């Protein structure tokens, strides 16, 4: 058999292929090839494109390409009032729209300097935790499906469907909710929604355990994930990972506890961490967080205070619709708020909440006008995707699917 050196390899390989002969190459890297994965690939959760440089089946390097779903939300936010931007936050992380609504409302309220009444805050906490469960259920299901366990996807989506039904009662939409308002929420929570949430939480633990049983005893599932995509705690902080991806690496960082917002101080919950830092650890974090969130929903439902759902600040908060039709003052305020915006003071704030995917932050600069002068979305999915090259390097092509699934990026959010 003929040996080939670096400088003449390409033509020699071609000749050998044409003549149907065997050939050995001295430098293995001469064999490397570029594989383009995505943007249209079922396992990339949307339109993530990964350029992989392969040596055999081992990945030498990986370059993620983002921007296939870039809609320019930051530019749009600069050209609309604070209230008008609420529906657009639904389209960021479309698996947990309510959570994004809350993040935006909290950011604008911090800028104006008002606070929603306790009942509205509790409703916000409730929807945040429900959307965390819903998002994690999709993440677990899709993740399992990516590595070959199809049934779990159907089972977790069945559970998520029940949460979407609660949202349906709560705000009349299953997906694009736009539920929060500046200074509160759109409507009070209905007794049916509370009853449904209560029923859901009581049956959820058993059903989750059922899903978990399918996976935790599945040797193929464990073997494909254990020790894959390892990222140490130090690297995870350095890369800026947040959410389950960070906590799967053993770093106890959760904004609900570290920078409390809403009434998370009143709730009793654990911050879930696993020390392994591999795909399996990230899966375990998600499952345990679902359980923890279910416990929190129980506490919220038992503590839900009575009172208003909108704060009383006529110049900043939209009045009730009945009052607009019957009272002069409210009509004027409604006209001013809708047409000219709520004009927060000159200043800048950064407000972040713990979304299912990680830290979702809004940086808003106000010049005292009805529109934000600048709005930056700190999206967890985008920053988490930055960890991909680190995790993927040195693994096989089939592991890429598992690693992307374990990070659970939503491209609507990553591409803004």
């Amino acid at each position, binding site marked *: 058999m003929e040996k080939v050196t670096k400088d003449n390899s390409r033509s020699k390989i071609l000749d050998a292929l044409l003549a149907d002969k065997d050939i050995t190459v001295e430098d293995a890297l001469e064999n490397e090839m570029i594989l383009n994965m995505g943007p249209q690939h079922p396992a990339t959760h949307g339109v993530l494109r990964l350029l992989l440089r392969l040596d055999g089946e081992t990945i030498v390097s990986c370059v993620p390409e*983002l*921007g296939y779903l*870039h809609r*320019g939300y*930051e*530019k*749009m936010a*600069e*050209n609309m009032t604070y209230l008008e931007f609420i529906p657009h936050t639904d389209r960021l992380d479309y698996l947990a729209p309510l959570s994004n609504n809350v993040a935006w409302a909290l950011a604008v309220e*911090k*800028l104006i*300097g008002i606070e929603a009444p306790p009942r509205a805050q509790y409703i916000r906490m409730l929807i945040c935790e429900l959307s965390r469960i819903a998002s994690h259920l999709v993440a677990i299901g899709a993740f399992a499906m990516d590595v070959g366990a199809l049934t779990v996807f159907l089972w977790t989506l069945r559970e998520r469907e029940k949460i979407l039904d609660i949202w349906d009662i709560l705000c009349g939409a299953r997906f694009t909710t736009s539920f929060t308002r500046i200074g509160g929420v759109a409507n009070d929570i209905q007794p049916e929604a509370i009853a449904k949430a209560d029923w859901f939480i009581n049956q959820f633990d058993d059903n989750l355990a059922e899903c978990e049983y399918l996976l935790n005893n599945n040797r193929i599932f464990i073997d494909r994930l254990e020790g894959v995509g390892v990222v140490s705690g130090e690297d995870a*902080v*350095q*890369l*800026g990972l947040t959410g389950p991806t960070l906590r799967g690496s053993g*770093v106890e*960082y959760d904004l609900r506890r*570290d*920078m409390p917002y809403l009434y998370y101080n009143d709730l009793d919950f654990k911050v879930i961490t696993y020390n392994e830092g591999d795909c399996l650890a990230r899966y375990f974090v998600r499952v345990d967080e679902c359980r923890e969130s279910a416990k929190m929903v129980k506490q919220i439902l038992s503590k839900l205070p009575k009172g208003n759902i909108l704060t009383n600040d006529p110049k900043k908060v939209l009045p009730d619709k009945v009052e607009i039709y019957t009272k002069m003052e409210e009509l004027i305020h409604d006209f001013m708020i809708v047409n000219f915006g709520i004009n927060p003071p000159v*200043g*800048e*704030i*950064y407000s*972040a909440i713990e979304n299912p995917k990680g*830290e979702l*932050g809004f*940086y808003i*600069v106000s010049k005292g006008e009805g529109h934000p*002068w*600048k709005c*930056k979305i*700190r999206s967890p999915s*985008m*920053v988490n*995707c*930055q960890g991909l090259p680190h995790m993927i390097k040195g693994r096989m092509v089939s592991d890429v699917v598992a690693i992307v699934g374990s990070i659970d990026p939503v491209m609507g959010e990553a*591409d*803004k």
Partner: protein
Amino acid sequence: MEIKELLTQKIKDKLPDVQFTTVEFRSELSIIINKKDIVKLCLFLKDDPDLAFNFCEDVTAIDWARRNQRFTVVYHIFSMKNKFRLRLKCDVEEDDCKIDSVSSVWKTADWEERETYDMYGIHFNNHPDLRRMFMPEEFEFYPLRKDFPLMGIPGSLPLPKK
């Protein structure tokens, strides 16, 4: 000592040649510094054991349109030890649209700076891979600058021929 006092005191003691002013709004602390000091200050804030700003949350910029110093680059950094968030701001002129990259300090800044470059056209010196983040590589404009119209510029993105 409270973290805010400690912070300003430490910078004054350890980095006497760094000029800075502080602004507080809604109990968030901003430090405004000269752009030549950014990497030095960031390294200090990260490595100091008492401050330990180990987590870079966000890098972005603001376009002030008609102001003399047109851009401001904004960094949000977080200290997990003190549970404290700090904002750093540096002004950048339009004629000299460059600033040193902090991606050697925090790896997160890599993509965040790429995004800022993509959206505002601010160059980051010593950046390992300064390419556009979202827009296509051949795109000539910077979309988040205030002189870029909301509807876009017709013909700026090549479309397939009829």
